[in-house]
């Protein structure tokens, strides 16, 4: 025998059952229909979020840079070129 008394076996089973219930609650919450077929994997989702973030930052940066250029163009009385016309 393993040396465990009946009670400790019960406690273990109970906590295991709780874990299992917890797992299913989490699983059901996570299971969105659109993603149900394939587990995309946490690693992939995080890297996509980061790449998305960098892309967004780059886009923001580009817009910001265009604004800065437009500002200086105004100061030096230059006509902004066509590609920057939306930042006037």
């Amino acid at each position: 025998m393993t040396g465990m008394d009946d009670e400790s076996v019960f406690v273990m089973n109970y906590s295991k059952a709780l874990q299992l219930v917890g797992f299913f609650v989490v699983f059901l919450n996570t299971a969105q229909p659109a993603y149900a077929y394939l587990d995309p994997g946490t690693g992939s989702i995080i890297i996509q979020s980061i790449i998305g973030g960098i892309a967004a930052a780059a886009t923001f940066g580009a817009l910001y840079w265009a604004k800065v250029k437009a500002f200086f163009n105004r100061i030096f009385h230059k006509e902004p070129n066509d590609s920057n016309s939306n930042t006037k």
Partner: protein
Amino acid sequence: MTKPAILDGSFRDPAGQVHELGGRIFRTVTQYGASAFSKVHATGFLTALADAGDLVPYEIVHDPEITKLFPHAEYVLEHKRLDYISYPYEWPFSLLKEAALLHLSIAIQALEKDIVLTDASAYNVQFVSSKPIFIDHLSFKPYTDREYWVGHRQFCEQFLNPLLLRAKLDIPHNSWFRGAQEGITNEDLSKILRLRHKFSLNILSHVVLPARFQTRARNTQLSGTKKISERKGIAKATYKSLLVQLKKWISTLQPKNMNNSTWGSYAEDNTYDDNENKLKAEFITEFIQSTKPELIYDIGCNSGAFSEVALKAGAHQSIGFDFDKIAIEKAFKRATDKSLNLLPLYLDAANPSPNQGWQQSERVGFAERASPDAILALAFEHHLAIGKNIPLPQVINWLVSLAPNGIIEFVDKSDPTVQAMLSMREDIFPHYTQSSFESALSDCAAIVKTNEITKNGRTLYWYKRV
């Protein structure tokens, strides 16, 4: 009609299954998959893909005789049966690369039409001759705003990582992929890549960092990591740039060290002189014209030269098998350069692809896959009989069991190739003689014709199974 059988290997997708019925192939669409399919079908995108030869053409079946057999299906599609099924662990590097590029190209075109692929399984690509074709009509669904590329990890495991294994470390993917049916994980590949590889932004962002995040998420399981439904997703432009960037990168990948291979220089190698090749070509031509096979197996196809002869003599399709990684690359190049109906695949004849996967029936093994009408086994038997110590009668039995007609070349012990094989080992093959070859072949087949093509005793045997 009898109850249609679900084909093993198509059970994972809740959107539908593939069935075989009297030799015809049907794909049922379940309630789960019906909405996505009908929306995607209505855009005409699938038809356009099929017209371009990138997707197996399909038709929606309306015949009540057929549809009543699938009472739970929302749609029944029928498509053409493919001539031969092959798996990514049998593809040479170039075929896997072609399949990867097709997958990405379809994903990019789809996204432009507001459609996305629901997975990135390499098993969804098959080959017609050496051209890849997408086979899963239910892998498409309408794009939802700011969704992630759900198939990214699967794409990396089943396409990118096996390619990188060969391109960066010169290890063919075949054995590993055959063992691990889902491909090569980012975590495993990450461990064996050298530091210098990890400075590449592409490798960092598609292999190393996802592996790191995956490991970390596993260690903090169910607590720290945000659920996908709580995340804000990525912009469509980011989604597209992921696909475009990967496609650009993969199109530049090449096998490392293309020259370091046993049979790489076959075509230039002069243990085979021109007269010998001429005699072989004549013998094959006569054999093909007489037996008129549709499908042939070219076992030990090398660079595919004799498959080419057989196809030009009238064979419809050749599947070339070889265990040499460079030889099958060359055969692929021959097939594409000359538009041959030749599919070169990796095969270790002493250990062919088994029935495997779930319930050992998800992926069909070499022997059950197809029934070729004829085989060519030129300069092959000695690799099993001498190289792998397989008794000569067993080698012959196995070859004859593959097809009712064929050509087997006997390579005598005095031949330089066999001499080279024996140069480092004891000759434990006293029974490896032409007469024992003949008697073993006569036991299971009729010998229709023979031709001795070298003075060293290389001889072609044309057999007909009895």
